[in-house]
C-alpha cells in the first residue's frame, strides 16, 4: 500500500450523522443478512437452483454506500448483488421469487440470482461478466452530466475485477471525462477460490491502482458501515459537485464460500475466525448500544426483518413458476423475439 493511502479507522462516535440514520444503516445490514441466510436455506432445499453468491459478512458496504445516495442515483452491482438490490428498495418477495424462478420474480424468472435489476429504484442491474458494468456505470454518469442533473452512478465490484481490462478502461475514461461515478471495490480477499494477493501486482488491488488514474487512494474498513458511509459520502459529494470519479476500496470478507454450497475450505481457519470476530453486524450493534441506542429498538429491528423475510419467502414460495408463455417476450422493444417480418 502506498504511504499516502487514506486510512480510515472506525470512528468512536459519529458526529455529523444522526442516530436515527445510523439505526437505519443497522436495519439495512440486518435485512440483507437475513435475506441472504434465507436464500442459502432455499438453496439447500433445492428451491433456489443454479447458483447464488451471498454477501454474508459484506453487508456494511452496501449499507454504508446506499445511505450516502439519493433515490435518483444509479447503482450497478455484480452477481453478488442481492444486498445492493435490496438496499435500493427491490421488494424482498420479488427477489426471493426471482431466485426461485417464479413468475412474480423481479425479472419474471428471466434473470435469476446473478442479474437482479430494479430499474424503478435506479438499481440498473447485476452483471455477471466480471468488470463490464464499471464501463456501463460510466455511461449512466455521462448521461446524468449531459442531461444536466446531478445524479451520481455507483458501481460495486469485487477485488478480482481490478485485474480485468474493463476496470482499467472504465477508470481511465471516468477520470478523463470527470464523470460523477463512484467505483466501490468490495475487497473480500478472494476471487472465487484464489486469494487476490496471489495474482495481483500490488497489495491493495483497487487503492494502489488509483494513482494510475490521477485519483487519491481510498481504503476503508468494509466491515464498518460508518467508515464506509463516511468515505462514500465524500466520494458522492465529490462526484455530485463536478469533482469527478472516486475509487473506494472497502476491505471485507465473505463468511461463506464463493457461491452456492462452496464450503470455502481453501481459507485458513485462523483467517476465517479472525474475520468472523469482525462481523459487521454485532460490531455495529455493539457500537450503537454503546452510544446509547436502546437494545429493544435494535431487537425490534431484527424481529421486523425476520418477519419481513419470512413473509417474503412464503409469498414467493406460493407463487407459480415462471410462465413459459413469456419465454419469448422482451427480447426486442416491441415486446417479443421475432427476428423476421
Amino acid at each position, binding site marked *: 500500500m502506498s504511504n499516502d493511502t487514506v486510512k480510515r479507522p472506525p470512528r468512536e462516535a459519529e458526529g455529523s450523522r444522526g442516530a436515527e440514520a445510523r439505526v437505519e444503516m443497522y436495519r439495512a445490514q440486518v435485512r440483507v443478512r437475513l435475506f441472504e441466510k434465507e436464500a442459502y436455506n432455499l438453496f439447500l432445499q433445492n428451491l433456489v437452483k443454479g447458483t447464488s453468491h451471498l454477501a454474508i459478512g459484506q453487508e456494511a458496504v452496501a449499507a454504508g454506500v446506499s445511505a450516502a445516495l439519493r433515490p435518483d442515483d*444509479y447503482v450497478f452491482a455484480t452477481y453478488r448483488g442481492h444486498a445492493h438490490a435490496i438496499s435500493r428498495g427491490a421488494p424482498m418477495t420479488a427477489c426471493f421469487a426471482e431466485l426461485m424462478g417464479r413468475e412474480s420474480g423481479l*425479472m*419474471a424468472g*428471466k*434473470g435469476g440470482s446473478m*442479474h437482479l*435489476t*430494479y*430499474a*424503478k429504484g435506479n438499481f*440498473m*442491474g447485476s*452483471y455477471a*461478466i466480471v468488470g*463490464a*458494468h*464499471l*464501463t*456501463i*456505470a*460510466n*455511461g*449512466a*454518469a*455521462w*448521461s*446524468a452530466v*449531459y*442531461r444536466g442533473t446531478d445524479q451520481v*452512478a455507483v458501481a460495486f465490484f469485487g477485488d478480482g475485477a481490478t485485474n480485468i*481490462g*474493463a476496470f482499467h*478502461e*472504465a477508470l*481511465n*475514461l471516468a477520470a*478523463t471525462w470527470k464523470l460523477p461515478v463512484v467505483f466501490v471495490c468490495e475487497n473480500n480477499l478472494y476471487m472465487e477460490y484464489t486469494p487476490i494477493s496471489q495474482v495481483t501486482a500490488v497489495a491493495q488491488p483497487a487503492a494502489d491502482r488509483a494513482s494510475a488514474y490521477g485519483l487519491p487512494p481510498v481504503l476503508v474498513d468494509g466491515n464498518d458501515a460508518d467508515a464506509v458511509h463516511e468515505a462514500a459520502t465524500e466520494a458522492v459529494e465529490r462526484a455530485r459537485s463536478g469533482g469527478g470519479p472516486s475509487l473506494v476500496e472497502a476491505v471485507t470478507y465473505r463468511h461463506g464460500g464463493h457461491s452456492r454450497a462452496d464450503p470455502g475450505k481453501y481459507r485458513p481457519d485462523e483467517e476465517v475466525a479472525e474475520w468472523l470476530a469482525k462481523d459487521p453486524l454485532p460490531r455495529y450493534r455493539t457500537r450503537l448500544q454503546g452510544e446509547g441506542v436502546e437494545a429493544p429498538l435494535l431487537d425490534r429491528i431484527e424481529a421486523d426483518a425476520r418477519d419481513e423475510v419470512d413473509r417474503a419467502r412464503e409469498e414467493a414460495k406460493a407463487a407459480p413458476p415462471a410462465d413459459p408463455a413469456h419465454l419469448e*417476450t*422482451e*427480447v*426486442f*422493444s416491441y*415486446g417479443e*423475439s*421475432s*427476428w*423476421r*417480418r
Partner: protein
Amino acid sequence: MPQVITYREAVAVGLAQEMERDPSVVLIGEDIATAGGVFKATAGLLEKFGPKRVRDTPISEQAILGAAMGAAMTGLRPVAELMFADFVSVCHDLVVNQIAKARYMTNGQISLPLVVRFGNGGGLRFGAQHSQSVEGWLMAVPGLKVVVPSTPADVVGLMAAAVRDEDPVMFLEEKALYPTSGEVPEGEHVDELGTARVRRAGSDASIFALGTMVHRALGAAGQLAAEGIDCEVVDLRSLVPLDVSTVAASVAKTGRVFTVEEGPRLCGWGAELASIVAEECFYDLDAPVRRVTTPHIPLPAADSLEDAAIPSVERVVAVVREGLG
C-alpha cells in the same frame, strides 16, 4: 431536388438529421470528433454540434460501448463508432453479453436505444484484422438488430431508423462503399428496418445480397441479362429483422436462389437464408440453393489474393450460369 452524395457523406448527413431533431442523440468513438473519424464519416459533426455531443474517446472499446449502454438506459440515444468492425472482438462481451441481453434478462426494465457503427468488410487490402465482415457474428446473437446499407440513400434512411429504434442496432457501414455515390432524397429521410429492396426485378433467378455484394450481384445480373438470363437482385439491407416475406415472394417468382456473401463460408447469413427457404419455400424451388461466399479463410492482404477471395462479378455470373444450366 435529390442530391448526389457519397456513402461516406451520407453517414454524417444521416447523423446530422437525427441530431438536429433530437438533442438526446450523442456520438462517441475514437477520433470521430476533431479528426472526423478515420473513415471521415463523421467529418463536420463536431463543428456543427459541439464537443458535448461529438466526443473523442480513448482506445477503449469496452469503455466506449459501456458508456453507450449506460447512457442509453438512462435517457440518451448514443451512437458509438467502433472504427474497424474487427475491433468488436475486443468488446464482444459488451455487445453479446451486456447490450444484447439487457432487455430480456431484466424482463423489459431496461431499454437500450443505441446504435453501434462499424466500418465493415474488405476490398481495401487491409489484411485479415481490418477487413472482416462481422454481420454473421452479430446476427447470431438474440437481442441485436443488424443493418447493412448498400447505398447513400439507405445510409441516411436506415441510420435515421436505427437511431429512432428502441433496440440496439448494429449499423455496418461497408468500407469499400464509402467513396461510392448516389442520390439521397431531399428533406428528412427515414427508412424502415427489416425491409429488403428488390434492386432489379427478374424472373429466372433470385440473387440475395447485402452491402458491397449488392453491387456485385447487380453487375452479374447485368452480364447475365446479355445472355438472356433474367435475374432478380434483392438487397436484404437488414439481417435482423429479416424481411422473409420479400425473400419468399422472390423465390416464388423465380424458383432459383443464390446468395452473394462477403463473409467466410460457415454460418454466413446465406446459410440461414437457405435454411429458411428450404423450410418455407421448398415447393417453389426448381434447383438447389447456391451460395457464393468468401472461402472459409482469413482475408489476405495482397490485391490478387483478396480479389480471389471475395465474391466477384465473374464468380457470381459463373455460379448463376451453372446453377441454371
